[in-house]
């Protein structure tokens, strides 16, 4: 049963009211790697994100959860300005990467994206060899040195726990790999250029449990070295693998806190309802 207060609050948000997010004290970081300040985003006339303010800690895994259409993917794609590719998108507010404003007009968006890696919901290896896929971020900055490319390829594939499976067929087409391998290849590609932030948009939603388990192990290994911001639909996954969890609903941030607290003792009733699977 959903409690009345939670229903009322969710209904109020659905009716267009703004709610004050409950941000736990642990989530006010001194030097966040990504700092989101009163961020709004519109698709044409439709407002998709409402005054989001949150900071992402360095070297940790932060999960964005919430029901479909709550804007978590949109928020993630705003971090590397991938939403710029959509003609009708307009933004307000700010977002900082290590203190530099991401949306400053002077920022070179191409350079910005080079500082982040992104893994998508559906694996999207390029129609080329495994090797070329991994070193793609290096190729586009013009690196031709074979030893550098080979070292990066091995390091990234090892990082993505894929090296042992593919080391003998690096020059075969990447499209011949299995779904889970393809997704790990995309992770290898995302970490090839040593990004400051790794953005993952539901990376396991198209994978079977075994492949999902491998990706989660991988995230645990990458943690510390990389900051990971992950969007997920899977509550267990968020609970298992993330350090901090943000719950979003209809474009608003509802609650943001340490994962353990969010899943066991959240401040808001509706967060509890959602993470225990009573709605959403």
């Amino acid at each position, binding site marked *: 049963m959903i409690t009345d207060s939670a229903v009322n609050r969710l209904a109020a948000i659905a009716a267009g009211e703004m709610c004050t997010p409950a941000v736990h004290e642990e989530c006010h970081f001194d030097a966040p790697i990504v700092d989101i300040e009163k961020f709004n985003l519109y698709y044409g006339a439709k407002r998709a994100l409402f005054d989001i303010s949150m900071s992402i800690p360095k070297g940790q895994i932060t999960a964005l959860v919430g029901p479909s259409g709550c804007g978590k993917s949109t928020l993630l794609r705003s971090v590397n300005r*991938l939403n710029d*590719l959509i003609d009708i998108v307009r933004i307000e507010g700010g977002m900082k990467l290590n203190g530099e404003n991401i949306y400053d007009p002077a920022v070179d968006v191409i350079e910005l994206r080079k500082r982040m890696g*992104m893994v998508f919901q559906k694996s999207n290896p390029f*129609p080329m060899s495994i090797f070329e896929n991994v070193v*793609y971020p290096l190729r586009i900055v013009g690196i031709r040195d074979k030893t550098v490319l080979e070292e990066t390829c091995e390091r990234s594939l090892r990082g993505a726990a894929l090296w042992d499976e593919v080391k003998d067929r690096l020059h075969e087409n990447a*499209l011949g790999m299995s779904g889970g391998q393809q997704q790990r290849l995309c992770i290898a590609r995302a970490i090839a250029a040593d990004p400051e932030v790794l953005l993952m948009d539901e990376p396991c939603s198209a994978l079977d449990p075994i492949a999902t388990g491998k990706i989660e192990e991988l995230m645990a290994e990458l943690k510390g070295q990389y900051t990971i911001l992950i969007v997920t639909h899977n509550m267990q996954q968020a609970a298992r693998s993330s350090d901090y969890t943000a719950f979003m609903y209809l474009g608003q941030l509802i609650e943001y806190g340490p994962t353990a607290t969010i899943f066991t003792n959240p401040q808001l009733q509706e967060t509890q309802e959602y993470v225990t699977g009573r709605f959403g």
Partner: protein
Amino acid sequence: MSDNRTEHVLNKKERFHLLPGLPLIARNEPMLWLTGGALVLSLALIVLLLSYIFYQGGTSFWPQPVEAYVVHDGSTIMGEQAREDTIEVDETYRSQLPEALRAGVTDGEEVERMLIRTANFDVTNTHFHWVDTTELVSVSVPPTATVIERLSWGRFIGTPISLQIQEEEPITDPTAIMEGVDEHLAGIHDVLERRIHLEKATLGEIRAHEESARLESVEVRLEHGEESQHYVEALAAYQVIKEHCVEESASVLAQIENLKKETAPYTLRMATASGQEADIPLEEIVRIYQPNALSFMDKLGLYGARWMEFLFDDPREANSEGGVWPAIIGTVMMTMIMTIFVVPFGVMASLYLSEYAKSGGLMSIIRIAINNLAGVPSIVFGVFGLGFFCTTIGGGLDNWLFPAEVSEGRPVLGKGTILWASATLALLTVPVVIVATEEALRAVPNSMREGSYGCGASKWQTIWRIVMPRALPGIMTGMILAMARGAGEVAPLMLVGAVKLAPELPIDMHGTFIHPERSFMHLGFHIYDLGLQSQNSEAAKPMVFTTTLLLISIVVSLNLIAIWMRKRLARRFVGGTF
């Protein structure tokens, strides 16, 4: 219980629909007849068209027997039967018959007649003769009937009488004559080839050299005036070259004369069926054979030889004999140049349309306009090409680059050339490439682009490294479609450079090797010219079919290459996931 019954009835109904042997009418799908009928009709028409062309084109080079028809007045008509038809007897027909035969026919009766290809145009002034069954007395197949394919005057059909070799006593034995001809023909062809090479290549080069020197002096005159010192000097230089060229060409002409003397004394005397005699120099003979005495393998050899001649020789006799080599070269080269023009432009344009341009009203209008451009009648492009490429651009370039030629009224680029024809066809086919490329670009999943942008790639890097390889099969398809369309187009070419007979190929071993300023022959135009513009359309008919067959084969091969390429590239770049 009632539920059960309903279910039972439904099942039966379902099975009823699936029964394969059920008559169509019982399936209660009347539109099946209309839609299926339309498909069957169009397929049948296409199959009919293709099989007709394949039959006619494939058989026309097979050696026909030569028959001798003796008619009522005792005269003999010898030749190959071209076709048959029937004619209804009426007053006019009867009045044309000899009196003795008039009683034999009644009004309204159908009389069969045959069109006989008698050849021997130089002797009889006709290529064909109608023979009616009413006047026919007897038919025979004389084993000594001989067909000669000649360089000029078309074929000769008759019987050999004697062979004159130099000053020797003429050979009169029929077998010995044929053996003698066979023995000497190859040598004579060699000499002839050498002579033609001297006439065309060597002499042509000398003349071209002289001509270019002359044009240089004209240029100097145009620049500095007739009275100037420059012109006097240039003229003097030209005179030196001219004298040199005259000397050289005199020696070449002497060589040619010598070669002519070598072949001249070989003459074959032939008699037509009606007894007229004609002397045929052996150098005129392309091929000689006695069709009625040929074995199957001989015929096969002759058939192959004729195909080779058709594919690789120059045309003769107003294109109705010989080969279509210049037309093949012209068609292929024009298509190549067109492709070089059209593909980069079309691909660039569609890249802008689908990757850079923001979607909106203006873009929709441009898309509709491009689609409609593909439907503009091709002759309109021909007129535009003539006005814009030939006259404006070509004329402008001429005034700038070739003032001497222009001053003598001989434009170089300001006329129909293979270059402008290719440009015109490129314009005609650019919508095909744009539409196909856009389709291919649209089929590239957005996740690919996002993945590339996510790695920090710029737009062009994404297009060049990710989108283009993936879209390549589709772009190839567009290219081949454009090539197929361009190769088969005729109407605009008639205005911008295709000619009935081009003396020189647009590609050869002289000068710059490729000559974009030359007019050219084209297979499509060749078909039109043979079928509709030939003075001797009956004789040209086999060539029309074989040329059509060739053109269809070229276009079909292009399409097959497209399918093959598409499959290959798709396997490499698209592949199956999961």
